[in-house]
């Protein structure tokens, strides 16, 4: 019991990176904060910013009275929109007005903003906050809508993410992913921690602390459960873990190794890699661990399964051809067809929700690099979208417009998000822990 609690402790509101997170092994307060799911302060920061052809210039002014809260909704919204790659943020300085204002549209047109957002935060008698905003189309000089939401103080960040989602959807026609969640694993010394955070990296909470490795987290389609591989039993065992309650169950604990869980789109079953019959082979198993069925038989390694969103296909990594390549077969099993042909070593397939884009990691010399492949175009070549050399574990945002992945920077494993063209990247930094195995959760929070 000497190391109850976690190393993640938020030091102060506004602290900006994991560098402020300290290892507080025997601190009662540290234990308390970890147990209470104290947010780890960290945020993805845009660091590589290219010029996208279709970036829409938007001005988001400070919301009236937002400085009376411990959050800055306008800053959260600006950071979300910038990270998406679809927007260019027009500097608004200290300008502030609310949703009921009549902004001078001509002036904003002169500042080359195509869209404008203002709003307010008002503390209610019951202690909650009423957060309101309005979105203007500066080009047309019209209003595009607005909302009012009454939320607990602890939900102000989520409310701001939802506003960013509203703006994104109004202006791009596609759903935003700013109010979704991500999961990832941190590793520091002998401590492995599975964490759940907002899509911007903030509000990180501990789902599982372990002294043994945790890999391959996978969100259930309803966003309520995480499947993952834990080594707490001195071997790889697949667990399913209800995030809100902490209830967990081993669903694959057969002889040998049990790994690589992938949910079917209906959430009823998972594909897993089992070695119980020798080798690493693909099986399907019920969400509670029943009824394991073999999906394929090969004398090679078959692993890293991922279902297409329509449930028809199962993509996976196999070295049946002598070196690892990505294959696919019908979801129920059957003959596999090879999907990747360029390069001698391709692993870790991630499929976009529309099934048209495959992201994976290719080995080139000593570099492991994230690439995307257009599956809809015959003969398309994989496009590298990073210039790093230790990329791992890509996962698509539910709208298919961003990828999250892990890579190595300054001797640490860090998390990155990137647009599919690689032009806009953001990093979740860490000084004290390795951040690994990221996976983007579904819509629906």
């Amino acid at each position, binding site marked *: 019991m000497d190391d109850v609690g976690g190393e993640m402790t938020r030091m102060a509101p506004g602290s900006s990176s994991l560098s402020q997170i300290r290892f507080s092994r025997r601190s009662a307060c540290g234990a308390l904060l970890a147990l209470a799911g104290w947010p780890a302060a960290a945020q993805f920061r845009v660091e590589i910013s290219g010029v996208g052809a279709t970036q829409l210039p938007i001005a988001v002014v400070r919301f009236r009275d937002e400085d009376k809260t411990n959050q800055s909704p306008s800053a959260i919204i600006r950071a979300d929109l910038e990270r998406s790659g679809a927007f260019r943020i027009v500097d608004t300085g200290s300008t502030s007005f609310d949703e009921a204002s009549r902004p001078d549209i001509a002036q904003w047109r002169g500042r080359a903003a195509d869209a404008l957002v203002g709003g307010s935060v008002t503390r209610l008698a019951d202690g909650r906050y009423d957060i309101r905003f309005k979105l203007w189309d500066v080009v047309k000089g019209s209003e595009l809508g607005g909302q009012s939401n009454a939320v607990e103080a602890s939900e102000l960040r989520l409310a701001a993410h939802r506003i960013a989602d509203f703006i994104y959807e109004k202006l791009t026609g596609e759903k935003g992913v700013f109010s979704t969640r991500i999961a990832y694993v941190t590793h520091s010394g002998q401590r492995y921690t599975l964490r759940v955070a907002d899509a911007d990296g903030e509000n990180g909470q501990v789902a599982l602390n372990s002294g043994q490795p945790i890999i391959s987290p996978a969100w259930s389609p309803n966003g309520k459960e995480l499947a993952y591989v834990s080594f707490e039993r001195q071997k790889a065992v697949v667990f399913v873990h209800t995030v809100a309650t902490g209830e967990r169950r081993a669903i694959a604990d057969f002889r040998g190794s049990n790994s690589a869980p992938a949910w079917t789109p209906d959430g009823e079953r998972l594909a897993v890699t089992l070695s119980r019959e020798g080798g690493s082979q693909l099986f399907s198993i019920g969400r509670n661990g029943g009824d394991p069925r073999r999906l394929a038989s090969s004398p090679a*390694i078959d692993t890293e399964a991922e279902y297409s969103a329509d449930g028809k296909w199962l993509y996976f990594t196999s070295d049946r051809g002598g070196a690892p390549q990505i294959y696919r077969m019908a979801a129920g099993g059957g003959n596999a067809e090879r999907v990747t042909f360029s390069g001698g070593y391709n692993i870790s397939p991630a499929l976009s929700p529309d099934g048209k884009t495959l992201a994976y990691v290719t080995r080139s010399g000593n570099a492991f690099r994230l690439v995307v492949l257009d599956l809809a175009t015959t003969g398309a070549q994989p496009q590298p979208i990073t210039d790093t050399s230790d990329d791992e574990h890509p996962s698509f945002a539910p709208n298919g417009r961003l990828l999250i992945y892990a890579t190595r920077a300054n001797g640490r494993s860090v998390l990155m998000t990137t647009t599919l063209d690689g032009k806009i990247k953001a990093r979740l930094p860490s000084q004290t822990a390795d951040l690994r195995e990221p996976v983007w959760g579904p819509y629906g929070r």
Partner: protein
Amino acid sequence: MKTLHRHLLAAIAAASLAACSSVPLDSQAPVESRTGTTSGTGAGAGGASSSQTRVAPVDVTGTSNVNFTNLPRIVYFDFDSYVVKDQYRPVIEANAKALTTNRKMHMAVEGHTDDRGSSEYNLALGQRRAEAVVKSLTLLGADPTQLEAVSFGKERPAVQGENEEAWAKNRRAELASR
């Protein structure tokens, strides 16, 4: 047991709350999402939220226990290979002899890899190494039921380092009594 453990931790947490005077009360505990009231033209954002903000932490630290025998216990492998090289014949023979002498003895053979590539593909490569060692042991008379091949992939390197020397020390299988 696990539930009891959690309740206990929660009680400790509650008891020590007073000690952490700098904790802002409005964010001390996971709070469920509340349904916001929506007005205006909003369709996508806001609206009903299913309480998915809560994360209940679970702690499974302190469960590790590995016992190694006094026998030589490590077999190293070449890059991208799972062939048990002749130089490790003495390791295999010593352990096979122990297993055939004592039929009640059980061993786990843990495969490991260097840290390049994905966790899952390396887990499978480590599994292949572990299974190769198990096969060598059974060829010398050990019973398959005495042995379990498992893999840690790249998750538990013997040494840290991004060079061939470190990688070579990590490409291994370890024999542990269970």
